[in-house]
């Protein structure tokens, strides 16, 4: 499990942690039942406050991504498959929207964007 904290980021550190753990779940790198490090261990490894890691886990738990068993630790919770798929879709949509906005800003129309996607898709598929 990789978690990287950017000190220069404007996002609070706990949000950086929650975002990265969620991403690992969406990508399927963390699956139901996988255990997470304890809040104290994570804080130690990342050299950050225990309160920060605690908040990150509390947020993830409130949103249903993880479960904490007192005395045993925290685990990735069972994810609703449809919901997970929906969230993955949403991430893809967001990336496309970002790209479309950037493309429109420099004057590309829909046809040109489609052509560009086709070309880039081929490139990625060939890798």
């Amino acid at each position: 499990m990789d978690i990287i904290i950017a000190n220069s980021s404007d996002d609070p550190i706990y949000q950086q942690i929650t975002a990265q753990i969620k991403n690992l779940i969406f990508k399927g790198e963390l699956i139901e039942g996988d255990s997470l490090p304890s809040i104290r261990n994570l804080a130690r490894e990342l050299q950050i406050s225990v309160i920060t890691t605690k908040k990150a886990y509390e947020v993830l738990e409130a949103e249903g991504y993880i479960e904490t068993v007192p005395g045993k630790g925290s685990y990735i919770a069972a994810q609703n498959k449809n919901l997970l798929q929906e969230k993955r879709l949403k991430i893809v949509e967001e990336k496309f929207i970002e790209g479309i906005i950037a493309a429109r800003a420099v004057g590309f129309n829909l046809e040109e964007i489609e052509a560009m996607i086709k070309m880039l898709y081929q490139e990625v598929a060939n890798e």
Partner: protein
Amino acid sequence: MNNLLEVKNLSKKYQEFSLQEISFTLKKGYIMGFIGPNGAGKSTTIKLIMNLLKRDGGEIRVFGLDNIRAEREIKDRIGFVYEEPYFYEELTVLEMKKVIAPFYSKWDDQIFDQYLKRFGLSVKKKIKELSKGMKMKVWLAIALSHQAELLILDEPTSGLDPVVRRELLDILADVIQDEEKGVFFSTHITTDLDKIADYITFINNGEIIFSTTKDYIMDNYGLVKGKKAGLDNTLLKEAVGLRENKFGFEALVKDRNRFWKGSKGEFIIEKPTLEEIILYYTRGKQG
């Protein structure tokens, strides 16, 4: 008993300086940084906790016990590192250990040896042959070798190089892994140890400015920068400190989110560092 250390309305008066009814609490399993400029009252507070000075008023409880009435028991359970460690300069590290170890009921030679090894110290060296940083490490090894439940460190990083300072972070993080122990350290250099501090207690001129989680500070305080024309903004009246220069101004505000909403994009708003916060509080509004 969840509180390792409780300081309530503690006061101490000197002619030139007084500690003004300060209060703060440290819970088990956490690290608290005690920050402030030189002469703010950090060392006085620590000496009062260790009963090296007589308090004029207020209360200090360590492990729920009064720090004067239960001094012996408390000190047995505290690991203490003082800013300028006092040693008998002619003794070797080994002789020094033999002097100190009997004072502690839970002294553990094995742990002591492990730390000496980790710090690259030899027991045969005389104290006077050690650098300031190495003396600090000896004292640290002593503080960590009797299963202390509370570590009190007075300016532990002064005299230590960045590598050892980083090592100290790891050691302190290890100490709190079992959720039973706690660390209280004072410092006027806030750039390294503040990384792992859970709580920050900021003292200035004998008064506690705040004692809260570091995350609260980092998520709320803001450094506002803008053109001189922006100085009229009423929100700036609440600024903790303001500094004008030829080309604009910088101000520290307690609630950057409110500021963000109240301004129309004419300012740059950044997360301050603890060092900047200290600076603004200490300097005030005079600029």
